[in-house]
Each structure stands twice: as C-alpha cells, then as structure tokens.
C-alpha cells in the first residue's frame, strides 16, 4: 500500500512540476467558457443549451481522452526508455501495484481536470432544472426476438431450402438488426399496448408524459390522432395525441383516477382515432417520461460516467505501454480509439448483405470484433442524455463505474504486470 501511494504521488508530482496539469486545466476551462459562443444552436434556448452542454464537456472529454491515452502509454514505456523502470522493478513491489498506481494517478488527474470543467458547467446552469427518466417499453431484447423469428423461419415449410442453409449467426444478426427497427402498425380504431417498468416514487409524482413519433408506409406527412391511457395499479392517466407523422411529440398525461400505485408496471395503450393506419418502432419511437431529480445530479452522474470512460482508456494505455515500446503503444492506442469511434458506423453502413465478397467479409468480421471489444469506450459518452435533460440512471452509472473503474483496470493491470518485467530496456 505504501508503494502504491509513493508511485501514485510521484506521477502526480511529475504532472504538476512538468506543468502539464496546469496546461490541461487552462485549456479545459478556456474551452468550457468559449464553447457556448462557438456553437450556436437552432435558435431555441433549449437547442443552444443542449448544444453547448454537448460540445463544451464533450470537447474537454475528448481532449482528456487523447492526452491521458498518450500519457498512459508513456507511463511505463516512457519510464522504460528513460531506463528508470528498472529502478522500480528491482524494489520489493508487486508489478501489479506499479501498474495500478500509475493508472490511478492518471485517472485522478483526468478526474480533477474534468471536475474543473464540470464546475464551470454547474456555475452557468440552473442546477434544479428538472430531468426526466426516459423509459422504453419492456420488450424482449433484439437478440431474443431474433432467435424467436429464426425458429419460426426455420420451421416454416414455405421457407426456401436455400434460405434455410444460410449461416445461423449471420441470419440472427440480421434479424436482431431488424428487430431494433421493427415497425408496429396501428390501424384505425385499433389499440396498441406497451408495458413499462416504473419506480413507484416517480409514478406518484405529477408530470408523467409520453413521447411519440409516428410514421406511415408512404413517407408523407399525415395527421395522427389518438388517445393515450396509462394504468399503474389502480391509477389511471390519460392524454390525447394530435400531431403529424415524422414529428416527435410529447403528450402530458393527466390523472383521471386516483388509486393504489403498485406492482411497478405501467401499462400504456394508444387508440388510433385518426383516418388511417400509422406505424412506429416500439424500441425507438415510444417513451414514457417521468420526473427525476435535477440537472445538478445528472451532471454529477455524467461526470462519473466520463471518469469511467477515461479510466478504461488509461488502463488500456498503461497495459499497452507495459508490453510495447512507447511509439508502438501510442500508435496502437490511437488506432484503437479511432476504430472504436468508427466501427459502429462502418457496420451500420455495410450490412451483412454485402458479405458476398470474401475480402469484404473478413474486413467486416474484424471491424465487428473491434466494435464489440471497444463497445465500453464508444458507448459510454453520456452527454447525449445530459444535454437532453434525460436522467442518467443511477444503476447504469454504477454498472459502468464498476466495470470500467474496477474490473477492467484490474484485469489490464494484471496483464501489464505479466508483461512489465519481461520487456526491459537494456
């Protein structure tokens, strides 16, 4: 433990005395102050505010991601090329402690700079501005839905034999993608029903609303009219929809019957009373909105998630530096960062249908594996939610924090410890 703190404070001292901490702080705060003037939104107050939140904190997070990754790859590899690492390795210190202390120091630096940036955001924001839980309907996961569809497809005698011979993994992936974008059609005078899991506290409060976006088969604007009914236990809420397709609408719900609020499940029905059928994707186009705590708490949770993202980057960088030379480690880290940002969109743009060419198929396979592996980094950025005042859920924060700040760094530190003494600059 003693050694941990010594190495930890050595890293911090280095950052302070080399002025790199100061530089990062100045750059980050300056960016936070300047960003709202640089990004002018669509003219609405909410629009510009969302944009400012997104780009100011997003810019600092990006700056920190790149600079911490660079320092992390150098924290062991740089020591090694300065030939100082051997002086630590011959001391009675567990190698994993060396790796963990370096990771912790860099994450703390990042957390400090990010805290300064977050404080700037807090100073200019209304911290009590309410946020909302954004709930999606309870549905099988796209994967589960795909499995069910696959079984139906295989047992259907009308399915052509050639189609049945297609590779199962490929078909399942295709079907899962379809499930995500699956449309549900609601004819005139018919009713669609979705269930949500709600916390009792937020159901008790006033201010429930439903967010909807309808479309139709012809891709043209069309009126949508309907009635919403929400039931939680013995309580009932209602609202009426009057909108056009393609536009997002938020319908406030009014309580029409007081009763027990139990069971934690909310049942939402929509009756189409318009002249023609409408469609929506239940996994994307319908949300139940319920009041949550204020922007201040949301900002704190976003902060924790961003620190978690930085942690995994740092851990990855330190790990690479333990096994590789510094330039190679830095190059690998940056390539990985770019791949993690790009691979999801590559996958989206090149669906499985293009897998006919063998070379394309191999490339796609690698990209998919990379996307899978770097998912925790690329999917983490919570700024989207923060800027839309959507509540970043506490258990989500807890999960990413334990995964990215505890488990992943421990595993990477262990691997770093195995590599560290086996590669010493002589």
């Amino acid at each position, binding site marked *: 433990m*003693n*050694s941990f*703190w*010594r*190495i930890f404070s*050595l890293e911090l*001292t*280095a950052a302070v*005395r*080399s002025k790199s901490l100061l530089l990062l702080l100045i750059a980050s705060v300056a960016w936070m102050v300047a960003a709202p003037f640089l990004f002018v939104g669509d003219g609405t107050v909410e629009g510009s505010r969302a944009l400012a939140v997104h780009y100011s904190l997003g810019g600092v997070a990006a700056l920190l991601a790149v600079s911490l990754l660079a320092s992390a790859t150098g924290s062991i590899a740089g020591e090694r090329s*300065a*030939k*100082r690492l*051997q*002086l*630590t*390795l*011959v*001391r*009675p*210190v*567990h190698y994993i402690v060396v790796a963990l202390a370096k990771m912790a120091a860099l994450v703390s630096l990042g957390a400090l700079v990010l805290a300064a940036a977050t404080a700037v955001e807090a100073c200019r924001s209304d911290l009590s501005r309410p946020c909302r839980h954004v709930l999606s309907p309870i549905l099988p996961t796209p994967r589960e839905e795909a499995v069910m569809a696959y079984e139906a497809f295989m047992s259907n005698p009308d399915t052509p034999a050639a189609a049945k011979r297609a590779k199962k993994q490929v078909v399942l992936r295709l079907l899962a993608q379809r499930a995500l974008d699956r449309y549900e059609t609601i004819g005139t005078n018919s009713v669609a029903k979705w269930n949500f899991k709600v916390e009792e506290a937020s159901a008790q409060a006033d201010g429930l609303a439903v967010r909807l976006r309808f479309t139709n088969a012809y891709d043209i604007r069309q009126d949508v009219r309907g009635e919403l009914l929400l039931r939680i236990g013995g309580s009932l809420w209602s609202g009426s929809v009057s909108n056009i397709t393609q536009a997002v609408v938020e319908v406030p719900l009014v309580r029409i019957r007081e009763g027990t609020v139990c069971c934690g499940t909310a049942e939402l029905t929509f009756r189409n009373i318009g002249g023609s059928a409408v469609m929506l994707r239940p996994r994307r186009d319908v949300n139940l909105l319920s009041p949550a705590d204020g922007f201040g708490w949301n900002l704190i949770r976003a902060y924790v998630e961003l620190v978690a993202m930085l942690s995994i980057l740092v851990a990855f960088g330190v790990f690479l530096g333990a096994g590789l030379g510094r330039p190679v480690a830095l190059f690998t880290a940056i390539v990985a960062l770019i791949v993690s940002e790009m691979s999801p969109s590559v996958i989206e743009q090149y669906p499985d249908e293009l897998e006919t060419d063998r070379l394309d198929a191999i490339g796609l396979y690698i990209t998919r594996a990379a996307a899978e592996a770097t998912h925790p980094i690329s999917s983490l950025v919570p700024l989207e939610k923060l800027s839309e005042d959507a509540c970043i859920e506490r258990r989500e924060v807890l999960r990413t924090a334990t995964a990215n700040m505890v488990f992943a760094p421990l595993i990477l530190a262990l691997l770093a410890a195995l590599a560290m*003494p*086996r590669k*010493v600059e*002589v």
Partner: protein
Amino acid sequence: MNEEIVISLKGVRKTFRDFWLRPTVNAVDGLDLSVRRGEVFGLLGPNGSGKSTTIKMILGLLDPTAGEVLMFGRSPRSLSARARLGYLPELSYMHPFLTARETLMYYAGLCGLSRNEGAKRTAELLAMVKLEDVANRAVGGFSKGMARRVALASALVGRPELLVLDEPTSGLDPVSTKEVKMLVKALAANGMTILMTSHLLADAEDVCDRVMILNHGKAVAEGRVAELGGSLEDFFLAKVGSADEFVLADFLS
C-alpha cells in the same frame, strides 16, 4: 538451499535476437558463477563482454535464454529476494523533477520504509554521500558525479544485504572514486555482499575479494585477488589478450 550462496548462476546463456527473432549476439554464453555471503565479487571484462547483461539477469530484469539464475536461493523476481537487494545501474537514471531528498524518500517508500524511517534514512545517506547542501535541488540539474552519488545512496536506502554495482565509479573524480571505494570496503566490512563490475582494474584490485573475467560472454578466469601473484592488470591482459582501452582507462583515471 545454501544460505551462504547469495547469487548463483548455472549454465546461463543470453542470446539477443532481432525483430525476426534471429539471434544477433550471444551476450552471455554458458556462465557459472556463485557469490558467497559477505564477499566483494568483481565482474571484469572489456566493453561488450556481457557484464551488464549478466547483472540484469541476476536482478531479474532480463530472462536468461537458458540456465538458472538464483538470488538468495530464489527467483530474482520474488519479492523476498528483491527486498534484500540494492542496485546501482551503469548510468544514473533519475526522475529529473525530484530533488535529491525526494528521490531517496521515494525509493525508501518502495522499500517499505515508513515516512519517518524514510526521512531518517534519507538524512543519514545524504550525509554519507555528502549531498546535504544540495539535498533540495532537483536532480535533473545535477552533474554526473552528483547524480552518481544520489543513485548510490538510493541503492543503499533499503539496507540491502546484497549490493549490485554496475560501474560504481564511472563519472566520478579521483577523490570521489576513492571515497566510493572506501565506502564499498566499509559496507563489506559490515557484512554486506557486493557484486560490482568495473573497467578500472586498480579499483577492482583494491576492493574485491574475488574476481571473474569475462570475454565474449564467457568466463575466461576466476580467482581470489590475493592469490593472483602479479598485478591484476597483467593477469587481465594475459587472459583477455589485448590491451584495448583498459590501459587507457587506467591511464586517464
């Protein structure tokens, strides 16, 4: 395991390889060596003969290609072996932004000393290497000789039983060289086991009990300094077979 044998190498070989894993050089080639407790052992040899490579294998900083390396009867990478070790590398590598005092405090911490113990030990060592006046200056600005003293002090910070010195006197002026030699003798007199390499045969002759001469990674001679008869230099030249720069080095010092 015999506690009397502090370092033992059996049939140790180290082959460096290039990127394609083709062997480039046999830096150490079938070396047997044992250093007993309380001994001052000198590893001598011309440039590139494999002295530093041998030391790095003893410290667990390099894996031998073949053979067995033991320190205190254990793997050199075991914590208990490392806890009893002090090491001075060939060149004094420092954290340039730390002061001399902070440097020693840092290594004291890594050796498991508490803050108080570390501060006491640091003060002792600063006095011993005569750096008290500059203790609070960043070592990045130190001269070669000053840096060497800091490095030597940090090797001693954990009160090691075994001290490994790679060219302890390189970069030191004659007065400091003499002081370091006296220090080594004093430490040995207190029962510390010391393994050192040197270019300067006169130095080795003064402080070592036993020497081994390496050439091209092989031991060409080994013996007690007291039993050599003539001067170590004559012995060395006879074994290595060329004057090289040893005469020059001796001449310059």
